[in-house]
């Protein structure tokens, strides 16, 4: 017993040491973000007159107000919403449909479907953009409107949905396996149609993974800048992360304004993460380690 206590004390000292080292690295880790925030709080004139490392004479939020005013951020944020909200809803909805069918009904193609959906999520998709573009134009021509999909929110939404629905399917089907089969069986015995089985019985039970997935997907789609850059030729329609490219070129010399702008754009996902951490973690858990 004494040996145990001794051991525990030694371990405690070691642990404090470990904590201190990790603490140091944590500071190093977050320093770039802190530096950006710091840069955003200093007025441009201060830096010009006194240099980057000068002691702050003024600290204010002027850059933030100016960023909103000149960068047109509200317009870009609206664009992000136009893309993000429908995408997330569709991904969750469509993913749940497939997950529902393959986990509640035994068809021969179930496993194959699951495999394809999961694998689809892992493909390197950068170069598919030329066929995607060509498809969009051709489909648009079919309906007589070239910008039905290209340069249109609808097109970006579609591509996000196609690329992410596999992950949602995988997570939701994993989760559904843990829902007792009896629930479905009794629903069917009660004469539920497939649709009601899905809508009234299963869907309400899926709240936890749907919440988790919703949080994760929102974060990923919000952060994407590449597809909107490629598939939107009008800068004014682009979501805020893609617009950052243009803004970066525009304000490349005004570090402080750019820092404020970047901080504003980063804020939503950071806040989302801080507030909904549990959902983040559970979403990733279900999604990767098949917990």
């Amino acid at each position, binding site marked *: 017993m004494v040996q145990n206590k001794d051991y525990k004390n030694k371990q405690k000292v070691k642990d404090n040491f470990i904590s201190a080292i990790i603490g140091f690295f944590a500071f190093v*880790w977050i320093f770039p973000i802190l530096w*950006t925030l710091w840069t955003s709080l200093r007025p441009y004139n201060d830096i010009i007159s006194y240099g980057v490392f000068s002691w702050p004479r003024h600290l204010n939020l002027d850059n933030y107000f100016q960023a909103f005013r000149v960068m047109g951020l509200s317009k870009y944020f609206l664009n992000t919403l136009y893309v993000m909200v429908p995408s997330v809803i569709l991904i969750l909805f469509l993913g749940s449909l497939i997950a529902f069918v393959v986990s509640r009904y035994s068809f021969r193609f179930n496993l194959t479907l699951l495999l394809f959906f999961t694998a689809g999520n892992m*493909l390197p998709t950068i170069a598919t953009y030329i066929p995607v573009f060509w498809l969009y134009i051709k489909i648009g021509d079919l309906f007589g409107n070239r910008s039905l999909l290209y340069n249109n929110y609808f097109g970006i939404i*579609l591509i996000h949905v196609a*690329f992410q629905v596999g992950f949602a*399917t995988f997570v939701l089907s994993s989760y559904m396996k843990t829902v007792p089969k009896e629930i479905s069986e009794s629903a069917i015995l009660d004469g539920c149609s497939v649709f009601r089985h899905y809508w009234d019985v299963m869907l309400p039970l899926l709240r936890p993974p749907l919440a988790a997935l919703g949080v994760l997907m929102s974060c990923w789609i919000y952060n994407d800048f590449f597809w909107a850059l490629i598939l939107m030729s009008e800068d004014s329609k682009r979501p805020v992360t893609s617009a950052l490219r243009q803004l970066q070129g525009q304000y490349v010399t005004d570090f402080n304004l750019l820092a404020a702008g970047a901080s504003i754009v980063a804020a939503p996902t950071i806040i989302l993460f801080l507030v909904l951490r549990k959902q983040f973690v559970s979403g990733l858990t279900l999604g990767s380690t098949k917990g």
Partner: protein
Amino acid sequence: MKTAAVNKNVRSRRSLSRNDRFTLSAFVGIPTLLQVVFLWGPTLITVALSFTYWNGINVGDIKWAGLANYKNIFFGSPVFYDALKNNVVWLLWFTFIATPLGILLAYQFDRKIKGHQIYETIFYMPVVLSLAIIGIIWNFMLQPGGFLQGVMGRDIGNALSIWGNYDINSYVIMAIASWRHIGYIMLLYLAGLKAFDSSLREASAIDGATEWQTFRKIIFPTMRPVNVIILVITIIDSLRAFDLVYIIYGTSTAWPLLNILAFQNFAGQGISMKGAAYSVIALVLCVVPILVYLRIVFKEDLE
């Protein structure tokens, strides 16, 4: 028991109503159609295009090329080998440095050392940031007039060369990529550890084993499925790397990667189907990791 079995048989033998069949078809059909048309379709088209000559504009101009693009890449494009080298560097760094660090951090946080809550948040924060923002943040740190240069007392005129300095630029890029990757792996592993039976750990602690021994001999081996999945994710992310380098270098292949080459040859003023070929090469390299992932994750269903 018997009732349940009978019920099960009843369910599978009972034919579905027409409405139900329609609903099921829609449930399966719509998402599948979307996937096929906008994901698998374009992927297959890219593969097909890699065997052609085309300038990306008029479909009528597509000409068969056989393996010409691939021959060009393997035998005539030295920048391809530079890119492969960088992808390998990325892979090795992630596999032997970044991922293990993430795992180590996860283990320490799982042990609930002092401050672990805050640390978890801090280490994961870069993961929730868009790469566009990460590019800006690190520019503030590294560019002429930025933090690092200022600390070294160098102004814009004699700023230390970073992106163009081939002695250090790989390390810098890997450091920034790791900044993100480590937090991601940490959270994944942490989630996996939570499912781990803590009594095993308690037992080995009483036996006098150090924490390190416990981890090495008991926890790590038991986490094998999770380990493999983490490894596969590491490999695939290394092969899919693109965004960060695109932000830094644009399409100039100053620090090439497979996907950068794919994009450079598929876009811009000089579109050629070499870009499709590069993409197929990246795809082929991903096939084995993806298959391994599928096997592990769907183990029960496959057996």
